[in-house]
């Protein structure tokens, strides 16, 4: 029987040695070790009362007026005293969102319905925009024209980037639904035309 004589540190109690000593590290790295003592680390310990950093002068904050029925998580006891007022829910996506908030955050239904509502919201707004003087423009709004002035090709070619295989999917996500909608509209109009003639 042959015995292996080497004693690699990992398989004994020693830790593998470092290439640089503390003195070398301190000389090479500005500020090396200045926060070595956990007492100097602001988030240690995790739970800590910090005096004088904020200046709240209330025990419970005054309540912000609720200007429309604000959707909220059923895991909250009540509407929080302060909340954002961007983009109130409206349309089909709004109804979906209000429905999603009937489920707790612990239920996948809550998040899946919200994600579906996001897609419906995008379509509702695309369609609404067509009736305005500022319709959605998938070319200018994707910023894809910056490919020409910002090294679109040379930033990718020969760079061994791991994200290139899915870059080709991005245009499908942006343009796919538009092409699909155009196809559905074309088929619908053609069918109606045929029925009349």
């Amino acid at each position, binding site marked *: 029987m042959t015995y292996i004589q080497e004693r690699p540190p990992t398989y004994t109690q020693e830790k593998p040695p470092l290439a640089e000593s503390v003195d070398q590290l301190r000389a090479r790295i500005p500020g090396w070790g200045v926060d070595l003592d956990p007492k100097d*680390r602001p988030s240690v310990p995790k739970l800590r009362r910090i005096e004088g950093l904020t200046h709240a002068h209330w025990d419970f904050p005054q309540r912000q007026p609720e200007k429309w029925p604000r959707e909220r998580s059923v895991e909250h006891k009540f509407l929080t005293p302060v909340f954002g007022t961007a983009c109130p829910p409206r349309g089909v996506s709004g109804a979906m969102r209000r429905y999603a908030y009937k489920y707790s955050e612990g239920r996948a239904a809550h998040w899946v319905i919200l994600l579906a509502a996001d897609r419906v919201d995008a379509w509702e707004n695309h369609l609404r925009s067509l009736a305005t003087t500022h319709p959605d423009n998938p070319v200018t709004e994707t910023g894809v024209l910056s490919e020409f002035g910002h090294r679109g090709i040379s930033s990718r070619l020969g760079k061994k980037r791991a994200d290139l295989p899915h870059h080709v999917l991005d245009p499908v996500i942006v343009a796919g639904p538009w092409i699909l909608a155009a196809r559905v509209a074309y088929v619908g109009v053609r069918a109606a035309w045929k029925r009349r003639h």
Partner: protein
Amino acid sequence: MQAMVYRGPYKVRVEEKDIPPIEHPNDAIVRVKLAAICGSDLHLYHGMMPDTRVGMTFGHEFIGVVEQIGPSVQELKVGDRVMVPFNIFCGTCWYCARGLYSNCHNVNPNATAVGGIYGYSHTCGGYDGGQSQYVRVPFADVGPSVIPAWMDDEDAVLLTDALPTGYFGAQLGDIVEGDVVVVFGAGPVGLFAAKSAWLMGAGRVIVIDHLQYRLEKARTFAHAETYNFTEYDDIVVHMKKITDHLGADVAIDAVGAEADGNFVQHVSSSQLKLQGGSPVALNWAIDSVRKGATISVMGAYGPLFSAVKFGDAMNKGLTLRMNQCPVKRQWPRLFEHIRNGYLKPSDIVTHRIPLEHITEGYHIFSAKLDECIKPLVVPSAA
């Protein structure tokens, strides 16, 4: 006012919106001087975060000048140059009283699992963000601070998220002297986490990414040893080889929901939205560290489930630590580090984009064109 507006996945534009009003007595309205696009904004831009509504203005990294204050504001006055942490927080709830400002219970009616964040979907409270000319800042006596006269705007804006998050990530690693620390992701948070690991006494700092220009930055800015995972059959095995088959003592996930390195994981999360995020970097972290190690998660993930290798994490006896960074808690110490010359946050800025051209800014950052690491946004009123 001009503001960036989300129009659906991969689409944003600049629109005219009303200047936000005071909604609460402790609100302030801030005229934005400088904002930034964060890597986590790309999750919104790609339509990954549930309840991201068309019409919302993104932007949780910004500084500005106080334009208007509500009747109960005592600490700020009109004209103050202020930096605003990305967290919105009340200062007095159970969480805030214990320093967990990012987990404030009084600012986000939409979810209990996350606090309030500017411009980060309704899941984070439904607040418009700072990629605009003006922004509403709730709890003006609590979150914002007047920027010290010696600090320049670009350093200040990076103190609203990216630098504190990287510094916080290194703290959650519980680094002790001589630890081998591996950071996944050489974006802004990863660069700052690597830099911070040295401050806490790391003996070796390794950064993993697939973008060569970012790895170059990790070498020059963060003094790190770097590896491009595309050059190895299996980056986990390589990590074991370069650590004498022990594994790193600490790993920091600074990538989050759109990690590359596994096509199926990426597409199922980023494109198909079937997962809360692509946990490629997190799984590599779990497998690359030694048994009994600590993993700090700074990458943002969505609220849906993700295919994380918890079996390995359990069997290896790992400690997983994570949170959104309580930004203001980091400021006093980070101010000292900047004054002492240990950190120069603005060294990572690569692009300064006028707000009117933010559409291009998002595409450049998302597609990683032009060696983009950190794009700043400059509103025309600045």
